[in-house]
């Protein structure tokens, strides 16, 4: 069943008075339970595309259909895990996780029950009463994932959520995210500029080309889980994507090759 559909999304930006085409007709079909990774060079518009799905930005033309219904505004049916710094420092961890539920007017007892469940899932139970400044970057992203899942969204949007993590923490979370995906059967769209992340996580990898962006190619990855970063069998997917991206990536940043 098709969960989400992006139809010919076009988006321009104003840059020093010039109109720059960021997204030049992006089409995407997301099936229920898909783990989609969108990979592309920095600045190619992939985060903009995710924001449009979230309803945080409006496309100039084209539409997003969720369960065949067009969406325009932000909604808790499409929760987002941001790159970093999106947790509310004035709230305790548990209140951060409950924020969306509170906005939806869910009574306190019920909120507590739901938040406890997701804090457990992300192994955060003993940090429930901490404030975010007391947490490491990795712990913060765990909270952000718990907060997004607590809304029980139709689709989970992740915008380079592991970009600021050290590699050990990232490897751990890459495994955990796969387990969570299998357990919750959530549909996930995960944006990254890191090719190995996309290979480890995605069952479909969408390769964005440089601006003006559209999807250059879709790569299917049918491989057992949980996939580990060091698994050599994933290399061939990595190289396939790398070949596709090379011209785009080289132009942008050598760091992304690491």
């Amino acid at each position: 069943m098709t969960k989400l559909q992006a139809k010919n999304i076009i988006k321009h930006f104003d840059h020093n008075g010039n109109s720059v085409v960021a997204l030049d007709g992006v089409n995407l079909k997301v099936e229920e339970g898909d783990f989609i990774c969108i990979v592309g060079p920095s600045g190619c518009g992939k985060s903009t595309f995710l924001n449009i799905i979230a309803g945080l930005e409006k496309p100039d033309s084209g539409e997003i259909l969720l369960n065949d219904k067009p969406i325009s505004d932000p909604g808790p049916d499409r929760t987002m895990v941001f790159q970093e710094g999106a947790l509310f420092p004035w709230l305790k961890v548990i209140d951060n996780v409950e924020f969306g539920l509170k906005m939806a007017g869910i009574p306190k007892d019920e909120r507590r029950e739901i938040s406890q469940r997701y804090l457990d899932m992300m192994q955060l139970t003993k940090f429930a009463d901490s404030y975010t400044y007391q947490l490491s970057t990795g712990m913060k992203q765990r909270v952000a994932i718990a907060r997004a899942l607590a809304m029980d969204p139709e689709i989970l949007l992740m915008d380079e959520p592991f970009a600021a993590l050290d590699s050990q923490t990232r490897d751990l979370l890459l495994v955990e995210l796969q387990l969570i995906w299998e357990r919750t059967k959530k549909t996930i769209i995960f944006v990254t500029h890191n090719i190995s992340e996309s290979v480890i996580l995605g069952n479909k990898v969408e390769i964005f080309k440089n601006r003006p962006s559209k999807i250059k190619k879709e790569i299917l990855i049918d491989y057992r889980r949980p996939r580990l970063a060091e698994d050599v069998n994933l290399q061939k997917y990595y190289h396939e994507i790398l070949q596709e991206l090379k011209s785009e990536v080289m132009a942008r940043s050598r760091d992304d090759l690491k």
Partner: protein
Amino acid sequence: MKTKIFYKQILFYAGIIVAWQVIFVTHVIPSQDLPSPLQVGQLLFKETANGSLLYAIGTSMWRLVVGLIIAIVGGLILGIFMAKIDVVNQTIGSLMLGLQSIPSVAWVPLALLWFGPTDAGTIFVVVAGALFAISINTHSGIKNIPPTYIAAGRNMGASGLQLITNVMIPAALPYLISGFKQGWAYAWRGVIAAEIIFSIAGLGFLLNFGKHTNDISQVTGILIIIMIIGILVDGFVFKKLEAKILVRWGLLK
């Protein structure tokens, strides 16, 4: 470290009192111009015992708190409108900057004409002193909210008033607090000035009463009380609040 600073301060103030006593005993300044620390202490003790000092402090603080609450509510609303609607900032915002430059004591004559020497008059001076600084700081606070907070709030279904109260105001709190602190400082000066000129109950009144009765101990004693209240509110209430918020908001290690 902290206790070390505390001891230094104790020593310093003790030194001042000793020097003060020496000046008094040696008559460097004639005694009708400078009371002894003991005379001031005795007077403050007497006024504490008969309740007049506490009554005056209570009266001044009551006017201050009522005025500040009005100024905070009004300042928040004005500041949010200034931040959200450009034309409001370009017009009312520029007026706020002008009004903020008026010293609080300059509002006293107007307050007297409008309200007479009443509580309402002093409260007006407090509001006029604090409102503009608070609204200006609220405006910068809202403008400087990291966009990710707003995006996250909207993403989780907050909109309109919900977004303002649950995301924008708490996110702007570090700025709001410095606005409140500034507002309090202006308001405190304003309320004392109004009480001196109106000559109606309160610390300012006691100060003025000392002048009329030529009682130098009274004038000196009340000045010390006004200073101590200032230190307590600034150093304890606001400093602690600010430190806590800066740490929690991750703006300070």
